[in-house]
């Protein structure tokens, strides 16, 4: 009879845990790639075009995250804010299971705007 002990580094718990942990670095990498693809460094703030950019960032982030195939529910928000000297502050409080759930924030600066992307991942069960 074979037991799991014969295969070190291949335990049931570990396989399960990969699916249930929110990997901040990985998610941040995904966001960075998508934001830099969508927002060009030199582009000016044009309110009519912002909705398109916002839409495509948010949609493609969720698409990429769902392709990771983890047991998570995701919430993605994207804020694009014009740079003209006005201040902005954002705070988040969460009530959740901090062992499994996680969040990341990515901030991107161009000459004319700030792009702030927030991702929350909530483990299912």
């Amino acid at each position: 009879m074979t037991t799991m002990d014969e295969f070190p580094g291949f335990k049931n718990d570990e396989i399960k845990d990969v699916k249930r942990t929110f990997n901040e670095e990985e998610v941040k990498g995904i966001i960075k790639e998508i934001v830099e693809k969508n927002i060009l460094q030199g582009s000016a703030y044009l309110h009519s075009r912002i909705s398109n950019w916002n839409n495509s960032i948010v949609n493609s982030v969720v698409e990429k995250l769902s392709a990771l195939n983890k047991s998570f529910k995701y919430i993605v928000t994207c804020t694009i804010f014009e740079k003209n000297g006005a201040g902005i502050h954002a705070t988040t409080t969460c009530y959740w299971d901090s062992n499994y759930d996680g969040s990341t924030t990515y901030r991107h600066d161009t000459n004319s705007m700030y792009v702030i992307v927030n991702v929350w991942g909530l483990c299912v069960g």
Partner: protein
Amino acid sequence: MSYGEIQNTLPEKVQSSVMVEYERRGSEPSLRPAFFQKFRAPPVKTMIQQIVSKKLDQAIYNKDHAPGWAHEIAEEIKQKLLEMELSRYKYIVNVTIMENKGAGARMQVNCLWDSDTDNLAQETFKNETIICVVMVFGVYFY
């Protein structure tokens, strides 16, 4: 199949856990929240409106005070949500305070979740110098 029938067919250990769940919810055990236990946007919206307008009605934007306000608002909303006593919900409260100075801004949300149980309440507050956007997400876990 009614609850009584399930109880007879399940092994002892499962039976006791089903029983605990039954007593806690006061209904048939299921993976869905009961009708009155669902997260609904309208009551949460009015609650947000009350808290934010109480806090920021007379306020004038100040870069030193804004982070404190945002933190206090978020904590207060979270406290009120927990007092609603919806079981098995996780909450995310996001408060953004911006200076009302004519700068353009756009926020967009996309969610991958169970739209039957999970919901979002969003409120915007404005006065002469401040724009405050509050988003509350309620996510059910099974």
